[in-house]
């Protein structure tokens, strides 16, 4: 019972922080839309071309915009020592990482659920594909949150090379992006592809708490 209370207060705190930083969230969404505009200006407003490339464009931009919010994972809590306080409150670092992944998914990734249908009408994607895109986005963004926690925990003490965190996310997200685009484009093999995608999510969800917690401990002991 106590544990559930602690977890509840953790989420309340996360909600308050992200509610105060709403402009940060909106600038993420705005980056996504603006990047789509840039793509349309670059390719040209040809309806057929946008229809064929649209899903790939949307997925790669979701990936890029998820690398923008990496610092929100642990960096602020690490700098003002909130991580140690939460840990002393009785939550292990592994559990903190899992809760952070879930809260990151809820407070940073879920607003894209509203943005994606609007964006897909902008690039002329068929209506029956939008629901598949949303399903693949929910699983794929969970994978992105796991990868983001790994990369954010690795780069806690990194003060020289800021692009490295994005590189780590992008290099490990290659299988995710292959299968999540294939889920939308290949409707006959939907069930097998979605199973592979869920399997990828389970793999990353299994390794990311341990890896991130090890990196957080390392960073805290050398702060």
């Amino acid at each position, binding site marked *: 019972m106590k544990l559930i209370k602690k977890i509840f207060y953790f989420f309340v705190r996360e909600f308050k922080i992200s509610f105060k930083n709403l402009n940060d969230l909106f600038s993420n969404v705005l980056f996504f839309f603006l990047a789509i505009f840039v793509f349309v200006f670059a390719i040209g407003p040809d309806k057929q071309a946008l229809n064929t490339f649209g899903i790939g464009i949307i997925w790669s931009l979701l990936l890029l915009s998820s690398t923008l919010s990496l610092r929100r994972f642990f960096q602020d809590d690490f700098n003002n020592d909130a991580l140690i306080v939460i840990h002393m409150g009785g939550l292990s670092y592994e559990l903190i990482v899992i809760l952070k992944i879930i809260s990151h998914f809820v407070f940073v990734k879920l607003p894209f659920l509203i943005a994606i249908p609007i964006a897909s009408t902008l690039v002329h994607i068929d209506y029956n594909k939008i629901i598949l895109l949303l399903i693949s986005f929910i699983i794929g963004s969970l994978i992105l949150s796991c990868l983001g926690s790994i990369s954010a925990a*690795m780069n806690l003490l990194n003060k020289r090379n800021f692009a490295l965190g994005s*590189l780590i996310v992008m290099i490990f997200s290659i299988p995710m992006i292959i299968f999540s685009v294939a889920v939308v484009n290949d409707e006959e093999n939907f069930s097998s592809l979605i199973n592979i995608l869920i399997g990828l999510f389970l793999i990353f969800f299994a390794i990311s708490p341990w890896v991130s917690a090890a990196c957080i401990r390392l960073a805290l002991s050398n702060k």
Partner: protein
Amino acid sequence: MFGFLVNPNKFNKFADIIMKPLCYSTFVILLVGLILIYLSPSDYQQGSTVRIMYIHVPAAWLAMLTYLIMTICSVVALAFRIPLGFIINIAVAPIGAMFTLICLVSGSLWGKPMWGTWWVWDARLTSVAVLFVIYIIIIFLKYSFENREVQEKTTAIFIIIGSINLPIIKFSVDWWNTLHQPASISKLSSPSIDTSMIIPLITMCLAFMFIGLLIALIRIKTEIILRKDNL
């Protein structure tokens, strides 16, 4: 007996002993390998371009072997707190990156006359390119932390996660229908390589191994000496 693998001081002494014979044998094996390549027969379809294989295949093997060594080193170093493992990681990463680059470039030069393109997006080529990027990230990780312990352990953890890529590279030609041919070195596989070609190939592979080992020994020694000075 294997104390030199744990203790940096003993490793340095061991490296001093082994250095000179290693230099000579590397030179001899490389020379023999180059002569054997010159004497080896041309392919009936590919002509003389088949000789790119004697650079391409050893470089690819060595790129993967280097990553495997790095993975084992990081696991051992993290689990048993052996500092030499971290030193080997740092020293060996640029060598692996170079081998991967040689593999990619020679494969590209081979692909242009044989396949008609410099590059195709098939599974084997893409996964090797990913391996190259992983090597580059490992090298970058070295320079982005001020604290050495954090740098070493983060690099080791990253290497362990990145080793997911190794089985993908190995089995990519079996799992997917790729333009790149499956492995034909083993005598058990049905289209297998001829004996007159496998002897220079094995010799070149040994030569590449010795070159890599030589550079690695020099780099590890330098790293150990630098660390002693910084203490």
